C-alpha cells in the first residue's frame, strides 16, 4: 500500500516504525531536522514542505496514494491536507489526527469528508477511564465493541495467592478469560497449562469485561469502585479525561493553574469541582483533602510538573496515580517515581491510526511494551490452516488466540472449541511475527 504521512513528530515516527516494513511510505514535514532521522533509520522517502499545500502534495505524488495520514499537531492543517487529498485522489483513504474533540463529533455526524478521525485527547481519556475501571490494571484496551477486554497487570505482593505458584491448569482464574502472555524480565512466555505465575511477572489477560473486573479483584484485593478522582491540569487532555469520568458517574475534582482556563472548564463541565491552584501547594492539598481521593490523574502539559505533583500527591496519601506522559523518556522517570499507570497520548494516537492502516481484515491492533507485542483482531479466512481445528490442537507459533467473535458475540474458547472460517480471532503476538499470524489465518 502507498501511504502518505504528514507530520514527522512523535505520532508520525511511531506510525513509521509500525508500518515501514510492509508499506511504501512517504513522509512530509516542514522541518528537515525531523525528517532526517526517519530517512536514515527506515526505508521511507521524505519530502520537506507544507502538507496542507496542494502543490507540495501533488508534486510528492499524492494522486497515487492509497492512504493519507495527517498527524501534525495542527488540526486545521491536518483537515486541509485530507480535503486536498480527497479532491486530488478521490480513492485515497484519509485519516486525520485532531486534538479538538469537537471535530470528532462533527465527523461522527458525517459533516467532515474524512474517512477516519482520531483525537489524542479522547483516546487518552478512554484509556484512562478503562484503567480506572479495572483497579490494579496497568493498561487496558477493548475490542469487539467492548465485549472483549485486554488488561495488563503487574503481579505484586498482596495479590490473591490462589493464582500464584501453581500450574495454570490448577489455578483458580476467572472464567471467560485467558492469560495471553507472561512477561518475565526480558522473556515472554505464551503460557500453557503447566506454566506458573510468580510475583514480579507482568501478565496480559484477554477476557470479558466481567472477568477483567474479577482479575482486578484478584490482583488487588479490597479495591472498590472508583468514585473520587482528582485530575491535575485542565488542558484539553485533562478536560477530556474529566468529561469521560463524569459520564461514568465518577466524581471529579479538577485543579488548574491558569485562572482563565479554570473558569472556562468550570463553565464547560457543570459536574466537576474546579479549583484554581497549582496543585503543588501543600496547604491547598491538605485543606482540600486531596489525599482522600482514590485516584489522581496528572494531565499537565509538562512531564516534570506531573512528576513533582505526583510525588507530592503520593506524600499526601494518594494511593493510585495515573500520569499522561509526553516525552518517551519521562515514562521511565515516572515509573521510577512510583506512578502506577502512564499513558502517552501520542503513542495511543499512533496505535489507533496503525490499527486502521493494517491489513483490511485486521480490525484493531493494540501495542504493548512500546511496540514489542501486538494484539490483532483478524477475521479467519475460509482457507486458513487453523479453520476447523480444535484450539487444543493448534500449533503455537508465536501467537495465542484469547477470544473469538462469532456473529457479533464474543466467545472465550476452551480446548475443545473449534475455530471456524469467518470468526474474528483476537490474537496476542510478537510484533515481528504479525505477518506470519496474518498469513496463517
Amino acid at each position, binding site marked *: 500500500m502507498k501511504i502518505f504521512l504528514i507530520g514527522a513528530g512523535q505520532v508520525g515516527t511511531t506510525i513509521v516504525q509500525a508500518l515501514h516494513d510492509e508499506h511504501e511510505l512517504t513522509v512530509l514535514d516542514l522541518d528537515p531536522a525531523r525528517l532526517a532521522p526517519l530517512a536514515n533509520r527506515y526505508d521511507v522517502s521524505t519530502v520537506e514542505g507544507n502538507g496542507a499545500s496542494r502543490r507540495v502534495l501533488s508534486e510528492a505524488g499524492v494522486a497515487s496514494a492509497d492512504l493519507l495520514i495527517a498527524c501534525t499537531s495542527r488540526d486545521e492543517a491536518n483537515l486541509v491536507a485530507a480535503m486536498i487529498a480527497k479532491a486530488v485522489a478521490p480513492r485515497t483513504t484519509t485519516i486525520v489526527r485532531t486534538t479538538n474533540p469537537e471535530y470528532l463529533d462533527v465527523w461522527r455526524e458525517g459533516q467532515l469528508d474524512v474517512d477516519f478521525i482520531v483525537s489524542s485527547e479522547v483516546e487518552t481519556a478512554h484509556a484512562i477511564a478503562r484503567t480506572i475501571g479495572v483497579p490494579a490494571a496497568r493498561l487496558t484496551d477493548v475490542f469487539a465493541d467492548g465485549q472483549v477486554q485486554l488488561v495488563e497487570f503487574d503481579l505484586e505482593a498482596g495479590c490473591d495467592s490462589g493464582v500464584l505458584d501453581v500450574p495454570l491448569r490448577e489455578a483458580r482464574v476467572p472464567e471467560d478469560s485467558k492469560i495471553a502472555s507472561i512477561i518475565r524480565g526480558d522473556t515472554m512466555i505464551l503460557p500453557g497449562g503447566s506454566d506458573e505465575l510468580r510475583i514480579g511477572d507482568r501478565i496480559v489477560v484477554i477476557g470479558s469485561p466481567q472477568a477483567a473486573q474479577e482479575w482486578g479483584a484478584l490482583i488487588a484485593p479490597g479495591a472498590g469502585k472508583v468514585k473520587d478522582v482528582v485530575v491535575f491540569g485542565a488542558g484539553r487532555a485533562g478536560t477530556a479525561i474529566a468529561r469521560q469520568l463524569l459520564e461514568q458517574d465518577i466524581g471529579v475534582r479538577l485543579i488548574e493553574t491558569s*485562572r482563565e482556563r479554570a*473558569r472556562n472548564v*468550570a*463553565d464547560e463541565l457543570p459536574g466537576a469541582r*474546579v*479549583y*484554581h491552584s497549582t496543585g503543588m501547594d501543600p496547604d491547598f492539598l491538605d485543606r*482540600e483533602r486531596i489525599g482522600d481521593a482514590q485516584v489522581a490523574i496528572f494531565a499537565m502539559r509538562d512531564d516534570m510538573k506531573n512528576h513533582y505533583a505526583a510525588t507530592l500527591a503520593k506524600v499526601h496519601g494518594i494511593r493510585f496515580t495515573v500520569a499522561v506522559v509526553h516525552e518517551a523518556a519521562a515514562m521511565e522517570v515516572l515509573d521510577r517515581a512510583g506512578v502506577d499507570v502512564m499513558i502517552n497520548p501520542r503513542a495511543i494516537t499512533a496505535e489507533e491510526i496503525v490499527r486502521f492502516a493494517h491489513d483490511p481484515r485486521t480490525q484493531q491492533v493494540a501495542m504493548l511494551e512500546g511496540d514489542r507485542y501486538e494484539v490483532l483482531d483478524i477475521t479467519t479466512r475460509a482457507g486458513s490452516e487453523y479453520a476447523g481445528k480444535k484450539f487444543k490442537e493448534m500449533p503455537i507459533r508465536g501467537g495465542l488466540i484469547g477470544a473469538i467473535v462469532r456473529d457479533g458475540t464474543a466467545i472465550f474458547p476452551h480446548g475443545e472449541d473449534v475455530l471456524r472460517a469467518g470468526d474474528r480471532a483476537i490474537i496476542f503476538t510478537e510484533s515481528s511475527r504479525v505477518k506470519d499470524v496474518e498469513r496463517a489465518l
Partner: protein
Amino acid sequence: MREATRVRGVGRPRLLAVDLRGSLNLVGAIAKYLSLTTVVPAGVALGYGEPPWPFLLGGAITGASGWALERGTSGDHRIGAREGFLVVSLTWLVAALIGALPYLLSGESQLDRPLDAYFEAMSGFTTTGASVLTDVEGVSRSLALWRQFTQWLGGIGIVVLALAVLPRLRVGGRQLLESELPGPEIESLSTRIRDTARRLWFLYAGLTAALATVLIVLGLTGIDGEMTVFDAFAHAFTTIPTGGFGTRATSLQDFAAVTQWTITFFMFLAGANFALMYRAFIRRHPRVFAHDEEFRLYVALLAVGSLIVGVQLWAEGIETGEAAVRQATFQAVSMMTGTGFVNVDFDVWPVLASMTLVGLMFVGGSAGSTSGSVKVVRHLLLGKILRRELDQTVHPELVTPVRLNRAVVDERTLRAVSGFILLYIGIFIVGAALLAMDAARTGLELSVLDAVAASATTLGNVGPAFGPAGPFGSFEPFSDVSTGIMIVLMWLGRLEVIPIVVLFSRHYWRST
C-alpha cells in the same frame, strides 16, 4: 507659535457627554404619539353620553407640547445606551402628565389637586394600582376607564409600545428596551428588536382579549351577575399588566368566586415571563415552563405563600373551605405579582398572614413579565450567589460559575443583581422612614407596618398597603409630601431603580 496653534486646534471641552437634545427629541416624539391614546376614553365618553372634551383637550395639549419639543430639538442625534436611561426616565414622567391632565380637566372633585391627579396617573402607568380616590364608583365611566386604560398602556412598557410602532426607533431600540425591561437578561424572541417588541405586544393584547372574553361570558351567562361588559374590559385592562385598579370600592370582593379564580389565573400568567409564554403558547413548546428554573421557583413561592396564608386563615377560624383557599391564593398571587386586587379585607388578618403578604411584595413576578418588585430570577440568582459564597469560604480556590437554566451567568450580571437588590432594599428603607416621619409630622396615624407596607407597595408597584391605605382604603389621607415621595417610589420601582439612579451620578453626564 506652533504650540499655540496646536492648542487652539484642540477646541473647547464638551459640556455634556449625553445627547440631551436627542433625548428630549425622542421623549417629545413618544409623548406626541402617546397623547393619541386619549381618543379611546373620549370614544367611551361619547358612548356613555359623557363629555369627551377633557380627554381630547388633554391629549391635544400634551400632543402639541410633544410635537413642539420634537420640533424644537430636531437635528442630528446620537441615541445610545447612555441616552436610553434619560429617555426612559423622562418618558415615564411625561406619560404620567399625559395621564393626569384629563383628570384635572374633567373637574372630578376627588382629583382636582394637581399632585393627586399626578399620583393617580403615575399609579396608573406604573401599574401600581394605589389610588387617592375615596369613592371609586363616584367617577364618570369614561374617567374610570381612562384609569384602567393607563395601566394597560403602562403594563408592558411605553417604550416597548413605541418600539413596536415607531419606525424611527429602528436604531438604538435595543438600549431603550434594556433600560425599560431591565431584568437580568432580556430574551430576544427575534433577531430584530422591533419584532421582539411586536411579539410581546401581540401576546399582551391576546391575553387581555382572552380575559375580557371570559369575563364577558361569565357576565352574560349570569354566572356572575355583577360582571357587566364595562367591568369585564376594565378588569382585563388592569389584570394583564398586573395593575390593580378596580371599578368597585370593594375591588373584587363582590364578584363571583369563579370570576375571582379566573382573575387569579390570569394574574398568575401576567406574572410569568412573556418570552417564555410566547414560546409555550405561540410556538407550542409548553415544556419550556418545566425547564425554566425561574418559573418553577415562581410557582413554588406562590404555592408556599398561599399555603401559609391559607393555613393561618383556617387555623384562626377566619375562613374555611373553598373561601379560605380562594382568599389565600388570590391575595398571595395578587401581592406577589404586584397586581394589588383585593377580594377580602386582609387588614384584619393575623400578623403572620399580613407579614407573608408584605414579604411577597418583595418577591415580584418573573423577569420579562408586567409585574414589578425585585422579581423571582433575582432572588434565585442571589440565592445561588450566597450558596457559592459559602462554598468558597470552605474552598477558597474553588471556581464555580453560577448557572441559570444550565447556562453560565456572567459575573457582571451577578454583580448587577446584588447591586440592584441592595439598592432596592435601601430605597425601600429610606422610603418607609420618610413616610413614617412625614406621618408623625402631620399627625397621620400610621403604624410601623403601615409605613413599611406603603413604601413596599409603591416601590414594588403593588397597590394596597395596610392601615389607612389598606385593602379597601385610599392614599388620600397622606400629606402632599408623602404623596410626592410615593410618586417617586412608583417611578423608581417601575424602571427598576438603576436607569433613574444612574442619572444622579456625575459620571453619567461627563465623558470623563
